[in-house]
């Protein structure tokens, strides 16, 4: 079905970007007219984001970037790229989200390593999701890679594809991976019913060096001096509570915020939400149905085994599993980390 190929280059190049290489050959620039136009380009290659068919070498004004704490997507490897039109740069919006100018694009490719113990090797590339900043707002489009790996084709209705890999303990895992349809893109990316990027916020880009690199290359304005630094969720040297809240921010906060798809739940898991009932501490379920698993609270301090949040993260059942979209396997390492966080909270009388 889909191609399998050596793609260590993908991981290697994603942090580089065009600014490093200079223009070795006079390639036409990114098709800005397609980004700002009102058509739905049928092929990923139409945009000319990349100089190669495999979409690994960024064109001019396209650069790779990484996030301190990424969204979990069934152990998929992701390569993230940012395009900002010549002569423009991004500022900052609410909560430090990059305010990307019209004509910008975010490009994210999802691939699966055959063996999680050797990430980056023998990657099977599944899909590339594109967010286009048009004058009327953001547009989200999913592109699915064809069998020979020569291009990815627009597939707005999404789909499913079987994926298999060897897990960290050597066991084989096989899932039905969901490629989201364009409405599902919006379910996660909607803020007050308008599509917004999720990942590129100053705090999640801030790894000590990356913001400076992006500023120097002219992609973004200098970040505010007080820009917080979201910890890496898997950084054992960072405080557990901060790692937990970082993970919940990135993996849950896009819906579970006051203007998101889960606004009606009263459970808000964004980084800047102060600890309390709204972040799940002693919070009773509202519309969870059997998603409660028979438990009383989203987070019951001291009791991970009785916390609905972990019950739903451990479940694979539609109607129970959280997040609702984009997860067909359990993120065991994150469940363990969050479980330690909840266990360490003083139990309530």
């Amino acid at each position, binding site marked *: 079905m889909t191609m399998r190929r050596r793609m260590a280059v993908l991981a290697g190049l994603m942090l580089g970007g065009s600014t490093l290489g200079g223009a070795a050959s006079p390639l036409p620039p990114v098709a800005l007219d397609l980004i700002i136009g009102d058509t739905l380009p049928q092929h990923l290659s139409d945009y000319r984001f990349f100089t190669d068919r495999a979409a690994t070498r960024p064109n001019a004004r396209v650069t790779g970037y990484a996030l301190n704490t990424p969204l979990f997507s069934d152990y998929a490897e992701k390569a993230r790229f940012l395009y900002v039109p010549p002569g423009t740069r991004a500022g900052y919006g609410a909560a430090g989200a990059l305010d990307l100018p019209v004509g910008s694009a975010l490009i994210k490719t999802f691939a699966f390593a055959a063996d999680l113990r050797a990430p980056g090797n023998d990657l099977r590339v599944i899909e590339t999701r594109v967010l286009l900043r048009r004058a009327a707002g953001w547009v989200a489009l999913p592109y699915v890679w064809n069998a020979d790996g020569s291009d990815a084709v627009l597939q707005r209705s999404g789909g499913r594809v079987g994926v298999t890999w060897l897990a960290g303990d050597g066991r084989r895992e096989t899932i039905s991976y969901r490629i989201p349809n364009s409405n599902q893109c919006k*379910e996660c990316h909607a803020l007050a*019913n308008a599509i917004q990027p999720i990942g590129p916020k100053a705090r999640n880009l801030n790894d000590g060096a990356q913001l400076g690199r992006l500023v120097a290359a002219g992609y973004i304005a200098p970040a505010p001096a007080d820009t917080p630094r979201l910890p890496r969720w898997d950084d054992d040297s960072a405080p557990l509570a901060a790692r937990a809240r970082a993970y919940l921010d990135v993996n849950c906060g896009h819906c579970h915020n006051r203007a998101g798809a889960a606004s009606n739940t009263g459970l808000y898991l964004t980084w800047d939400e102060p600890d309390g009932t709204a972040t799940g501490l002693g919070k009773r379920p509202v*519309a969870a149905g059997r998603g409660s698993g028979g438990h009383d609270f989203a987070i019951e301090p001291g009791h991970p085994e009785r916390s609905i949040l972990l019950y739903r993260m451990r479940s694979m059942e*539609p109607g129970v599993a959280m997040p609702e979209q984009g997860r067909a396997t359990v993120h065991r390492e994150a469940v363990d980390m969050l479980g330690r966080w909840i266990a360490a909270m003083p139990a309530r009388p």
Partner: protein
Amino acid sequence: MAAAALCGLAVPAAADTIAIAPGDDAQQRVQTALIDARPGDVILLAAGRYAFTDGLSLDVAGVTLRGAGPDATILDFSGQLGSGEGLLVTATDVVLRGFAVENTRGNGIKSKNADRIVYVDLRVEWTRGPRPENGAYGVYPVESQDVLIDRVTVKGASDAGIYVGQSRNIVVRHSTAMLNVAGIEVENCWNADVHDNVARHNAGGILVFDLPDLPQKDGHGVRIFANDASSNDTPNFAPKGNIVASVPTGTGVIVMASRDVHVFANRLGDNATANVMIIAYPRAFTDPVFDPLPRDIVVRDNVHGRAGWAPQLTGGRTLGTPPDGHSFPILWDGAGRGIAVGDAVATLSLGLVVPGTPIEQAKPMPVDLADTTRAAEPEAVLLPAAMEAAVR
């Protein structure tokens, strides 16, 4: 030419009808139609069974999704692998009409931020009967202004069959809810008319609840009238933790917290716990503006059959056996103010004046609430004319 040009000024671009038949690849074909539809379009689902592996979603305003009838066009989610509901609507002015949604893993049909949505002539059902592994809500409009649910049947929901949450200006009518935990539930809503429905054989028939810690608070202005909320005798099968898990089996109408709720001219009977129950929100909460008390509640002119002969309250035995020949069709926990009961049946107060007092401390006694000054009845809910036109 001139006439056509003038018409063109007044009439929007011609709406399309997109016809879809059952068969292979229904997931892609129906979802593609839902994505490609333009405002005003009608998506017609021909009679037959459509099998889906994922939830469907509609995010285009003004679209009608229409089948050949709730027993003819069946959207079958028995093989669902993902999504929290069968169909999700996130656009305004949508009409859902004439189809069934069966055996979703989560909720049946959810609509959020979907103002002026119309649910008409639909069926949502878990076909194996009441089971805790069924989805939570059958139809689930939330955070919306103007909601109409008309001629909708829901069976088997493990929470509420017809649930309207945190919305404003709502009409639920001519609908049937059976074999759910809660038949019809209106939660944290402002201004709702629930009338001419049948809510039988649930654990609880019709619920008006107000809960803390939600974006829309202060549920009020609800009229429950001309419904049949009798024979609610399905043992509560809700998963613990949810508020409906505390609904006593055998209850006709429950008003919890909330203000300005009027319950009148309903047919109530054969409910083992009570025909009408009025209670405070009993649990601890931190929300500083939430009021756990029921306030300005009016119960009048209902037709009562037998009720209250075996209350299924936690620790219900402490209530003692009602005196010979006495049962109490109306049950009040004793908290709140402005509770008026005009019905000519007995009301039992549990004397639990402070919300959250354990039921073991109940001091059951008959009370007469006939002389309470009755709060003014909320005004009838009026919906935009286009919504009424859509169901004719």
